[in-house]
C-alpha cells in the first residue's frame, strides 16, 4: 500500500550536530504537523549577525521542499549557508517529508573538466559529514580533494553526508583541486551517484573493487545520469583495490571502462584481508602494490598508492612516498593537510634527475636537428626508452613547478 497522504506518515526527525565543541555545523529538529504553518525557533552562536539571514534561508529551504506545516528548532554553531540547507533538507527527509524535492544552494561556476592524466600526487580526504573541513581544504594545495561518503561516515549518517557533499560540490570553491567523491560500496554507492553526479564531480573513487563488473556497473549508472541531465564532461573513475581477489583482478579492473584513469590500493583493508600487520616499510604489501602498479601501467593508466596513516610521522611519510615513487606510483592519499607538502616533495624528481633528463632531451633534440639516428651523451649512447623517460620526467617536473 502506498500512502498518498504524506502528513500521516510524517514524523519528528533531526539532523546535524550542535554543542560547545561543534564548529560550522548546526542541528535541525523538524516536527511535522497538519496545520498551523511554520514555527521556527533559532539559537545561534552567530544569531546577532546572521539570525535574520538564517531564518529567511530556512523558510526558503522549507518552501522548496514543499513543507508547509511544521515546528523547526535550529541550534546553529556558525554553519555556512550550504550546510544549513543540507541539514534542514536531511531532517525534513528523515521526517518523511520533502519527497524527491531538493533544496539546492546557489551554484558557483564549475571549474574546467580535468584531463585524464592530470597530476594526482596528493588527494586530501574530507569526511563527508564534517563540513568544517570543506571550506579551507583547497588552501592547503592538494592536487585533489576527496569528499568521502564511505569509511569516514557513520552508517546512520550516510543520507546526511550525501546531501551535504552534493551541496558542497555546488557551493564550495575547491580552487585548483580535482573534485573527487568516494562513494560507498555497491549497492549503497549507486544511491550516492544519484545524488552527486548531477553536480558534476571530476572523479568517482569506487571502494573495495574486486571484479571488473563493479566498475562497469558504476560506469553505466554514471552514463545514465549524465545523459539524463545532459552532462557532457568526463567523470573519471578510480577503483580502489583492497583485497587479495582485487589484486588478482587488477588488470581486468583497470580496463573495465575507458573512464578509469587510475588504480589505487587500500592497504588497511588489504592487510586485514591477508591477516597480516601493516608495517612501516610495507614489505607485506610489496607484491600487491607492484602487481597493481604493473596492471595499471599495462592498461595505460596511473597507479596511485595508499594513504600513510600516522599523521605525526612526517619522516616516515616522506620515506614511504620516496619509495612509492621509486616503485612507479604517481601519488598518495592524505588524511591531514600537513601531509601534502611532504608528499609533493617525495614525488618530485630530484634536481639531479631533472638536470640529467634535461641534458638527455637536449642531446636528443640536437641529434634530431643534425639528422643523427643515434643519440649520445658524452661517451654514452642513449636508448630511445631512456629519452622517452627523460621527456616524461621533464614534463612532470614542469607540471610540479620544479623545472
Amino acid at each position, binding site marked *: 500500500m502506498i500512502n498518498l497522504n504524506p502528513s500521516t506518515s510524517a514524523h519528528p526527525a533531526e539532523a546535524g550536530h550542535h554543542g560547545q565543541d561543534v*564548529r*560550522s555545523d548546526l542541528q535541525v529538529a523538524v516536527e511535522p504537523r497538519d496545520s498551523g504553518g511554520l514555527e521556527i525557533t533559532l539559537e545561534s*552562536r*552567530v544569531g*546577532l*549577525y*546572521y*539570525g*535574520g*539571514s538564517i531564518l529567511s*534561508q530556512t523558510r526558503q529551504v522549507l518552501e522548496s521542499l514543499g513543507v508547509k506545516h511544521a515546528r523547526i528548532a535550529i541550534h546553529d*554553531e*556558525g*554553519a*555556512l*549557508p550550504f550546510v544549513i540547507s543540507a541539514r534542514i533538507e536531511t531532517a525534513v527527509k528523515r521526517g518523511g517529508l520533502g519527497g524527491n524535492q531538493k533544496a539546492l544552494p546557489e551554484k558557483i561556476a564549475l571549474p574546467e573538466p580535468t584531463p585524464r592524466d592530470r597530476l594526482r600526487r596528493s588527494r586530501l580526504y574530507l569526511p563527508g559529514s564534517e563540513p568544517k573541513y570543506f*571550506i*579551507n581544504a583547497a*588552501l*592547503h594545495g592538494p592536487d585533489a580533494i576527496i569528499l568521502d561518503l564511505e569509511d569516514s561516515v557513520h552508517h546512520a549518517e550516510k543520507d546526511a553526508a550525501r546531501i551535504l557533499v552534493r551541496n558542497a560540490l555546488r557551493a564550495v570553491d575547491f580552487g585548483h583541486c580535482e573534485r573527487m567523491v568516494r562513494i560507498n560500496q555497491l549497492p549503497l554507492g549507486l544511491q550516492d551517484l544519484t545524488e552527486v553526479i548531477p553536480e558534476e564531480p571530476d572523479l568517482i573513487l569506487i571502494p573495495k573493487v574486486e571484479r571488473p563488473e563493479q566498475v562497469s556497473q558504476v560506469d553505466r549508472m554514471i552514463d545514465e545520469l549524465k545523459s539524463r541531465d545532459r552532462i557532457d564532461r568526463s567523470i573519471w573513475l578510480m577503483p580502489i583495490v583492497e583485497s587479495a581477489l582485487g589484486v588478482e583482478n587488477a588488470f581486468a579492473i583497470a580496463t573495465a571502462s575507458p573512464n578509469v584513469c587510475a588504480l589505487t590500493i587500500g592497504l588497511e583493508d588489504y592487510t586485514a584481508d591477508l591477516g597480516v600487520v601493516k608495517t612501516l616499510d610495507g614489505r607485506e604489501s610489496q607484491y600487491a602494490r607492484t602487481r597493481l602498479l604493473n596492471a595499471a601501467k599495462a592498461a595505460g593508466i596511473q597507479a596511485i598508492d595508499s594513504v600513510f596513516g600516522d599523521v605525526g610521522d612526517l619522516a616516515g611519510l616522506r620515506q614511504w612516498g620516496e619509495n612509492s615513487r621509486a616503485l612507479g606510483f604517481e601519488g598518495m592519499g592524505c588524511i*591531514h*593537510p*600537513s601531509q601534502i607538502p611532504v608528499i609533493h616533495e617525495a614525488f618530485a624528481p630530484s634536481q639531479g634527475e631533472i638536470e640529467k633528463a634535461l641534458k638527455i632531451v637536449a642531446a636528443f633534440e640536437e641529434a634530431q636537428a643534425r639528422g643523427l639516428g643515434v643519440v649520445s651523451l658524452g661517451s654514452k649512447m642513449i636508448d630511445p626508452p631512456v629519452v622517452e623517460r627523460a621527456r616524461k620526467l621533464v614534463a612532470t617536473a614542469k607540471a610540479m613547478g620544479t623545472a
Partner: protein
Amino acid sequence: MSDRIELAQNAAGRSVPAMVNGRPQIPFLGVGQYQPRGRKAAPPICSSKDYPENGDKRVANLETALRNCGLRNGMVISNHHHLRDGDQVALMALEAAARIGVKDLMWFPSASFPSQKGAIELMQSGVIHHIEGSMNGPLGDYCTQGKMRGMGVLRSHGGRWQAVQDGEVHIDVAVIAAPTADAFGNADGSHGKSACGSLGFALADSTYADRVIVVTDNLVPFPCVPWQIQGNNVDYVVEVDSIGDPAKIVSGTTQITRSPDRLRIAEFVARFLREAGIMRNGFSFQAGAGGIALAFVDYLRRMMKEDGVKARFVRGGSTKFLVELLQEGLTDYILDGQTFDLDGVKSIGSDPRHVATSPFTSYNYHGKGNFASLVDAVVLGATEVDVNFNANVVTHSDGRLLHGIGGWQNCLAAGCTILAVPSFRDRIPVIIDEVTTLTGPGELIDVIVTERGIAINPRRQDLLDAVKGSRLPIRPIQDIKAEVGRICGGKPARPKLGDRPVAVVKWVDGTVLDTIWQCA
C-alpha cells in the same frame, strides 16, 4: 554613576566621554599629537628612622599590613598579574580590605583573570567601587552589562605605567605577590614554588605607590638575590602559605596550534619576514604566546637556520620556543616582559642572556624612548580589522569585553606590525567595514595575514615593493574581505550597541581612543 555623560568626538571620529570617574579626559588627538609637559608623580619622602633597623618588615597578616598602610574608603589598591589565572594574592588583599571594613576601593590590577571573578561579589558588597584594568569573562560581562559603579578604564601595559607616572592614577597601596622575597622586601619572580619569571608589571607600583606590601610564600634570609623589586620601596612583608596555584601560574608546556589553517597563517608570517628582507642578521622580533604566534616562531626558526641568520634580540612573553632560539644561538638575548611556561621560568632564572624587562623599558610612551619601537617586526592578534587597517583587540563584535589590551597597543610602534588572524571565525568575518571598538589606529598597522592571503597597508609602499615578485599571496584587503563575504553568505548584521559608556580604551599617551558601550 549619572546617566548623562557628556561625549566628545576624538580625532579618530569616535565618541568618547569627556569625564571618566570624576577626572576630565583628553580625547585622542592623533598618533604622536599629545605631548604633556610638567613633572612626574612621586611617592612621599620616607625616613629610615620609621623602618626597623634590622630590616625585618614582616607583619602577621594582610589585615595588619593594610591597616598600617592607612587603607581607607575610596583609595586605590593595586596588584600585578604575573601569576596570571593562578593568582591568589589580589583577592586575598581585597578580602582583607573587606574584613577591616574598607569600602569603595578602586582596584587597579595590571590585568585581571577569570579566577578573580570573586571581585564581582566585592563590587556588589561595596568593597570595590570599580576596576581600572583589563576585564574578561565574568568581570567583563559585569562591566559591559553596566553593573559597575564607576567606568572601566582599559590601558595597555605601557599606558598603565604612563598613567601612574603621569599622576593620572595615584596608587595608595600596592600589594605585590612575590614568589621569593626577604624580610626587607627585596623580591623576585624567578625562583620559589610559585615562580612566574619576571615581576616587571609590579615595578611601577613599587616605585610610585604611597605604600607597598610584599606578599610571599618563599621567604629567604636577606638578601633575596636577584631582586627585581627593591626592598627600599617596600613598607611591609607578609608571609603566607601560598600566593597561587602553580599549575595555573605557568603552563607546563605551551602548545603550538594544530589547526592547518592557523599553521598556514603562521607560515605566511614567517615567509613574509624572510621575503620582505626583515629576517636578516641582527634583526629583532616579538611574538606572543598564542597558538599562531608560537607556530610562527617555529617556522621562523627553521628559516633562520636555513639562511644562517641570527637575531640580536627577541622580545617575549617568553616560552619554550624563544628559549630554544636562545639556546641554539639564533638570538643573542631574550628581553622578557612576562614568562609563560616552565621553560621560560627556568631560563630567566638561570641564563643571564634572558633578561627581565618592565613596561617602563619596553612600552612607556612618556619616556625617553622605549624598546617597542626598536623591534623590527611584531606579530599580534586581533578580534576585528577594518578595511583601513584599524583593529580591535578588546571586544567581540557584539561589544562585550573579551581581552585586555596588554602590550598590544605598545607593540604597534615596531618597524613592521603584523596582525595574524583567520579571515573568519564561526561564519563571522574578521575583516569588516568598521571595527566595533578601536584599539589600534590603522596607520600603525602594516600587514594583515590570513589563511586566504596577505594584505599590506597601502601606506607601506616599501613593504609592497619588498615582496613584489614573491610567491606569497599578496592581495588587497578589500579582495580578501569580498571573498569571505561570499563564503559567509553576505554581510553580518551589525549588533546595536547601547548608548551608555561603561568603559573607555586609552591610547598609549593617556588620551581616550574609544568607548565601550553598555550591552544587554
